[in-house]
């Protein structure tokens, strides 16, 4: 039982980080119908910037995190302006191809600047494990969960109440009508990319604290794609629930099945689940149903 709970908690924590990163996919998909294959590189750059500030310049962790987020926002914003703006109004597939190209370029830049050996964050959170009944949790896990939850609450409030949050949802619904409201669709796209880069960076920093940082961390971007599709690419609650679900499944597979088959199953399971879910529910678990009045 203790083992089960342990796996469950680990799954929820890792899953919540997936959920946050999946939010980035969802935002970009909602605003421009494209899938951003450079999400993983955003994540990598965010975590490397934070790591460099902490490790090389001795900046306090919180300040470094905020600086890294500001940098990521700027990165997302400018990537949209420079790389993707010319693709507005062009077929979605060309925008997707552009993000694939972008991901290679960013990966190359990361490689040039930071190399490829695994680096670790200096201990930021205390090492002393927290004990809840039979379950033992490392503080870094607990903190990750708290930080993710804070961000999810911030975004929920942003989309529900703020002027630009509501405008973003309106644009996702009907771009031309949004234009007729005087909403600048270009600004909305830029904000979507900035937020996508921010959530990736947060996810990257947290995972970096858990596992250490090297360029394979960008694979998380690919792993999170099933999460977003599972929840329904255009649903924010879907991304959150899908993230936690995949996290738990992954952790359970790792705990129970991997020892039987000699490992590796954990990496495959999210994609297997994705295929099964899409066969049953093509719009994902919470995908937007077209409202049709009859």
């Amino acid at each position, binding site marked *: 039982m203790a083992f089960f709970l342990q796996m469950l908690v680990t799954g929820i924590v890792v899953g919540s980080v997936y959920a946050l990163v999946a939010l980035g996919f969802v935002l970009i998909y909602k605003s421009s119908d494209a899938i951003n294959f450079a999400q993983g590189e955003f994540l990598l750059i965010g975590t490397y910037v934070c790591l460099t500030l902490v490790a090389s310049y001795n900046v306090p962790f919180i300040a470094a995190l905020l600086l890294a987020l500001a940098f990521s926002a700027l990165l997302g914003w400018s990537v949209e302006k420079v790389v993707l703006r010319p693709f507005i*109004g062009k077929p979605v597939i060309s925008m997707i191809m552009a993000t694939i190209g972008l991901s290679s370029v960013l990966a190359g830049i990361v490689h040039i600047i930071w190399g490829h050996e695994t680096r670790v964050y200096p201990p930021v959170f205390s090492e002393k494990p927290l004990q809840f009944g039979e379950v033992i949790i490392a503080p870094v896990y607990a903190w990750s969960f708290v930080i993710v939850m804070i961000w999810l609450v911030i975004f929920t409030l942003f989309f529900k109440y703020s*002027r630009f949050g*509501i*405008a973003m*949802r*309106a644009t*996702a*619904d*009907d*771009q*031309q*009508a*949004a*234009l*007729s*409201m*005087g*909403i*600048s669709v270009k600004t909305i796209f830029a904000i979507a990319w900035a937020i996508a880069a921010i959530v990736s960076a947060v996810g990257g920093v947290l995972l970096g604290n858990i596992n250490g940082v090297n360029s394979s961390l960008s694979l998380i971007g690919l792993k999170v794609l099933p999460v977003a599709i599972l929840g329904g690419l255009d649903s924010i609650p879907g991304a959150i629930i899908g993230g936690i679900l995949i996290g738990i499944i992954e952790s359970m597979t790792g705990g129970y099945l991997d020892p039987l088959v000699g490992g590796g199953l954990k990496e495959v399971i999210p994609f297997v689940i994705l295929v099964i879910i899409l066969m049953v529910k093509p719009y994902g678990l919470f995908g*937007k149903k077209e*409202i049709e*009045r009859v």
Partner: protein
Amino acid sequence: MLTLNNVEVMYNRVILVLKGMSMVIPEGKIVALLGSNGAGKTTTLKAISGLLKSEDGEVTDGYIELYGERIEGKDAEEIVKKGIFQCMEGRRVFEHLTVEENLIVGAHTRKDRHNIKADLQKVYHYFPKLHMLRHRQAGYLSGGEQQMLAIGRGMMAKPKILLLDEPSLGIAPLLVKEIFSIIKRINEEEGTTILVVEQNANIALSIAHYGYIMENGRIVMDGPVERLLENEDVKEFYLGMSEKGRKNYREVKSYKRRKRWL
């Protein structure tokens, strides 16, 4: 206040839709723009509101002036900020947003954010039904309710000129009457200038002060509503009446009056 002079609009650099369209919209009045399908009514509105760009259309000749300032070719957001707001054809409410959120989006360009609460109440005052439905998802509203929402959303932007594109489209006749009487009230009580594009000439002329009739991308006739209503051609082709009153179907088939303006 708003003047279109000899405006030409081309789509895709080949399709000439407006061929020298001129009209004047005086401040504080309701102007009706009538015409059959494909006459270029919607294109005229989009040329004014700057929505042509997203459809690969552009004003290739002539000019559009608001208070003497040229506005053709400007971005839609800029034009909304200058006080021209278009309620697009087919209502186009944001289906997955609630009624109230839809109204708030309408006020997106407003600088005086603290007045928005009061303006919401004002919209609810004109459309009490929207108040009842304010937490409902807009996609589940009926056609008439959505049209009310679309007009209310326009009011939230506090425009000087409200452009309404076929507010009667697909709505029950009784509701159409109600909506047009509210449009008239908005014009009288808020002083909003209104340009309404309609196929339903009867209802549009019942509230308008001035009317323009459009065919094949240009204005063929205009005048104060009283004069248009007396014109035999208008009666025949737009109001479905002849000297003998309402015609029956057989007569329409056997006899067609020649349009005098062509």
